[in-house]
């Protein structure tokens, strides 16, 4: 294991290295992690790298052991890769403000109607708030996309207001409908596919989060911002799931959270 100031490099199986950061998850740390991923990607001396996977406090670097330099005995040698990653990580962490790319605010329509919000009552009870107030507080923030993962297109969002934190279900549902918007612990998010799930469901978006036939196939990238916009059941039915989020006609913010 190699360490530098504020991070350590650890093997994650025989074909990946984790660069793990000591700092707590934050916007600043995510910016560093994405900047590091971009620096590694543009480094031409690292042809063995196959995947870069950012997370809250970690960047996982997958590599093909067969494309590593070989030591004298002919075995793949990770030393050069590790050294290079160490140097790049130190460089990126030393930048006070990482180089920023273009990040977008993506507004995602969500219908909080009863028929799409089977667990709204649970959330009302745990928070002591009315459904209208929950909707207002859920649609207010610009959530930070820390990373994508779990299933294709799932967004790990930061910034859920503390009053809306709510324990997961003791027994996960076997099948949660695609597009379901839920709260699990301190996280909120959208289930891109119909999968098992343990979050409390408070709404549903008509938009598809994963569009394998479109380019790009995903509606958001790390460091983008997400805002949920409340829509009616009639608007829900009228939205084409495959339309780009910026093309979806949405009523102005002042109308959101009116309890529909």
């Amino acid at each position, binding site marked *: 294991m190699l360490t530098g100031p504020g991070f350590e490099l*650890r*093997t*994650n*199986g*025989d*074909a*990946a290295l*984790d660069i*793990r950061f000591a700092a707590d*998850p934050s916007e600043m740390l995510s910016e560093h992690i994405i900047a590091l*991923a971009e620096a590694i990607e543009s480094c031409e001396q690292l042809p063995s790298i*196959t*995947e*870069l*996977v*950012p*997370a*809250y*406090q*970690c960047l*996982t670097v*997958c590599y093909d*052991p*067969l494309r*590593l330099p070989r030591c004298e005995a*002919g*075995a*793949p040698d*990770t030393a050069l890769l590790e050294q290079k990653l160490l140097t790049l990580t130190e460089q990126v962490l030393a930048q006070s403000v990482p180089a920023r790319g273009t990040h977008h605010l993506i507004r995602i329509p969500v219908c909080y109607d009863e028929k799409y919000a089977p667990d709204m009552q649970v959330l009302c009870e745990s928070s002591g708030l009315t459904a209208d107030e929950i909707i207002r507080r859920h649609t207010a923030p610009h959530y930070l996309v820390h*990373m*994508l*993962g*779990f*299933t*294709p*297109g*799932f967004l*790990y969002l930061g910034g859920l207001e503390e009053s809306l934190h709510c324990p997961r279900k003791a027994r996960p549902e076997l099948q949660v409908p695609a597009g379901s918007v839920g709260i699990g612990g301190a996280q909120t998010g959208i289930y*891109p*596919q119909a*999968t098992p799930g343990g979050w409390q469901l408070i709404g549903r978006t008509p938009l598809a989060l*994963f569009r*394998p*036939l479109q380019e790009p*196939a*995903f509606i958001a990238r*790390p460091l983008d911002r997400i805002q949920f916009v409340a829509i009616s059941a009639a608007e829900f039915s009228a939205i084409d799931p495959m339309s780009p989020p910026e093309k979806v006609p949405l009523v102005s913010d002042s109308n959101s959270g009116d309890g529909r």
Partner: protein
Amino acid sequence: MSLRIIKSGLQTTIQDGGRPGNLRWGLACGGAADTFAMALGNLLLGNPRSHPCLEVTLTGPEIEFTCDVSIAVTGARFDLALNHQAVANDAVIRVHAGDRLRFGPLRSGARAYIALAGEIQLPPTLDSLSTHVIAGFGGLHGRPLQAGDRIPLNQCRQESARQLPPAYRLDYSTRPLLRVVSGLEARHFSDDTLARFYQGGFTVSPQSNRMGIRLAGEPLPVKGIPQQVSSALCPGTVQVPPNGLPIISFVEGQTIGGYPRIAHVISADLHRLGQLVATARLDFELVDQAAAHRILVGKSRLLAELPSRL
């Protein structure tokens, strides 16, 4: 020119090398569950190793060919018949228009590959023809094949009769052994727990699928192991969830996870996950990273040498 599916089998899908490079979007590589068996079939026919093929799971299909084409069936051993005439696994089968390939009883392993000396004429999705079963895209209509499906083929060729040398004929009937390197969170497990993990007490649960291989047996104690902040989960990673029953991430596995990781199946043995059958008892053997890489180099060399040995 096409393949016509007469009977689908349990889960017959179009597969290739999958979609590497998309983990950061939450999309696991997918593709053939046993890439080694797929490569053997393709190399027998003179194809690239990950040329699109059919993956057959546990119960085989019945397929009618409307053109002359050579095929090869590798991986799990089924009794095979072409028009009621027995044909061999691990060898070129010269098929003629109108012939029917039938899969009989499964003898060992879990997944067979039907390699084709021809091109499947379907549009790729994200640069691959692989069927992603869990997310429902790719392949034909994003799903396993059904009776009545037609898979268009072109550039069909006949290849000369040849078979795999004995060294390449894998035996799936023995108790499966998976070699692993130590897990990222292995240090949190007690020596006693680790010893139990390596003692061979677990079997493959019938609830396993392309997302994950679930193990059944006496649960491992997980009390007191700290919660992990979610981070990337690579294929072959063995996680221990709160119920104490390990799960091995598989080809269509989730890409981010937070359960403690007790071990990682080495890259060279990932293909063996594709041949595990429910109730099989599993052994894990701990190796170090240098050994894991040596084994991978050896397997890669074996495949590289195959064309010159046919």
